[in-house]
């Protein structure tokens, strides 16, 4: 395989949920690729569909339409047995280390469980060695192996979440708000850990978060989602240097910056994200956009190339 062949190739991924009030457009025609060893940051506010996208990528839910290609294989075409094998290569780290760990299992049992479920290492001692190895890798002291999650703090629990995701030697990990529940000093520890592990193991990551300073620090490329669509996508530095979509501009300007000098001008948006149910055919950001034009209420802009590797969906950029 060539070096830059995408590991993940997502094409027109769509997920609608039927609700009492109508069709909820959770994810609407999302396409992107992630090259091997790279990190794509997926940002957006609550309800923009970023977590649903993550779940679709792992086929934890079935898409309404669209494809997810992993090494060129459409994962939707796999039988449940084949999908089971595929899951070894695709793992997930969850936001809340308090609810994603079984409280009745010890640390080593939690980390060992995926190995047992996938019958990866049959020999018990060998399996335990692998668990201890991973515990070393994520900085969990071996003496903690017989403790229970409730005895540990949030940072250590998230290390267990990372360890559990790593134990099967995956190639791709979806990280859904992995550090949002953690305190600043602990968050930095976990981010550094994830960066080191990624480099060491050559992992490919989808990093889902609402925290823009974290995503900027951690991603090679960033895609901004709004109401189920990607509205802008660019390499991390490019996006922060030249945000082009009015929503990206407002979103970046809203980050509270912990310094006193050279503070950027803030763009305050009117209103709130509209309901993703029964969306009209119009730009989804039109109701809040400070630069809205009449055309925005009549047509929907497509994601277009506006620079090298830089795409945005806005009529202003035509």
């Amino acid at each position, binding site marked *: 395989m060539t070096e830059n062949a995408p590991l993940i190739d997502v094409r027109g991924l769509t997920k609608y949920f039927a609700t009492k009030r109508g069709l909820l457009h959770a994810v609407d025609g999302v396409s992107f690729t992630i090259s091997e060893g790279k990190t794509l940051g997926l940002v957006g506010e609550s309800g923009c569909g970023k977590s649903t996208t993550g779940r679709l990528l792992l086929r934890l839910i079935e898409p309404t339409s669209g494809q997810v290609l992993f090494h060129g294989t459409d994962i939707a075409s796999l039988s449940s047995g084949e999908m089971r094998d595929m899951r070894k290569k695709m793992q997930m780290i969850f936001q809340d280390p308090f609810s994603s760990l079984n409280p009745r299992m010890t640390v080593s049992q939690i980390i060992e469980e995926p190995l047992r479920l996938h019958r990866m290492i049959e020999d018990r001692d060998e399996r335990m060695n692998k668990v201890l190895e991973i515990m070393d890798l994520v900085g969990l002291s071996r003496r903690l192996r017989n403790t229970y999650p409730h005895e540990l703090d949030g940072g250590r629990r998230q290390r267990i979440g990372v360890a559990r995701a790593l134990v099967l030697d995956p190639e791709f990990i979806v990280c859904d708000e992995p550090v949002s529940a953690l305190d*600043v000093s602990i968050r930095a520890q976990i981010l550094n850990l994830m960066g080191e592990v990624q480099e060491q193991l050559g992992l490919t990551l989808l990093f889902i978060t609402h925290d823009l300073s974290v995503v900027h620090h951690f991603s090679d490329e960033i895609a901004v989602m709004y109401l189920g669509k990607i509205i802008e996508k660019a390499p991390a*530095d490019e996006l922060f240097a030249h945000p082009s979509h009015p929503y990206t501009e407002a979103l970046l300007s809203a980050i509270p910056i912990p310094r006193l000098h050279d503070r950027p001008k803030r763009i305050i948006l009117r209103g709130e994200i509209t309901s993703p149910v029964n969306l009209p055919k119009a730009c989804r950001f039109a109701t809040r956009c400070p630069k809205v034009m009449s055309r925005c209420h009549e047509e929907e802009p497509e994601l277009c190339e506006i620079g090298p590797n830089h795409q945005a969906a806005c009529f202003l950029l035509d």
Partner: protein
Amino acid sequence: MVIGSQSNNTLEIRDLVVEYRTRERVVHAVNSLSLTVGRGQTLGLVGETGAGKTTTGLAVMGLIPKPAGVVLGGAILLNGEDVLHKSDREMKQIRGKTVSMIFQDPMSSLNPVMSIERQISEAIRAHDRSLTRSQVLQKAHEMLEMVGIPRDRGSEYPHQFSGGMKQRVVIAMALSCKPDLIIADEPTTALDVTIQAQVLGLMKDLKDQYRTSMVMITHDLGIVAETCDSVSVMYAGSIVEHGTLHDVFDDPLHPYTKGLFGSLPRLDDRRAKLQPIKGLMPDPSNLPTGCTFWPRCDHAKDVCRVEKPNPTYFGGEHFVNCHLFNEEISGARTVNMGD
């Protein structure tokens, strides 16, 4: 340094000690904490989970959960008047009228089965019995419009509002009796960034308009930079560093303060490696002796393990509680006891 009780401060806390006692253990939540909020000023109270920020806020409100929570000592002066020895009845008058608190989760302050205009009216009537029913309602509607909610939505219930709108309702309620001090406990932590920007902007405008003093409790140094005049950094129940916004942001001195800044991703250089603080917050029921930060401190010396540091002042109100400076000072920097 002597602080006059009739000074121009809205809030003064001196050597406050609060514990939570359970059958198994004693949690030392607040340990000899002192802070001051000048009239019309906003103080940022910064720290991580378990630092005692919320307990400090609750102590000012007289809302420390009993019987587990015990205020063991110190003084809390609101407009120069000690509130620690007030009766429950007197505290009821002070809450809302003199000091209000805004919590992270708006639903902890809102009644789900009462329309929002009735809830705001209730707060107004509790402190002003002279108004007629229609005057109260009129005032409730004014408050709603002030926080950007149209008056015709007043008859709706909390569940009909989004998170950002609910927090606006809570702000309207907190401001309805024009208190001298607002304690905002992580008021925007549960909100999306663009909504957070709206709510912070609103709070700032209203604070300026009413000349309200504020304590902004947060873990986010970005929010402090945006809304505060001065900062107190809290660790394990006491203040480790305090100064004006410029003192603390331009010249952070305490290793913990520096660690907090080092833990943040830098927007100007995304590849800069984060410099986290090693280790974890200490167990508040089993605090380290001496300086509570020494087990996590890269500069810890023998004296740090045994002796509590005293404040060292760096001119103005900037001080730091750290042995590093108690000694270094004699050589390198000149002490300037609060000029």
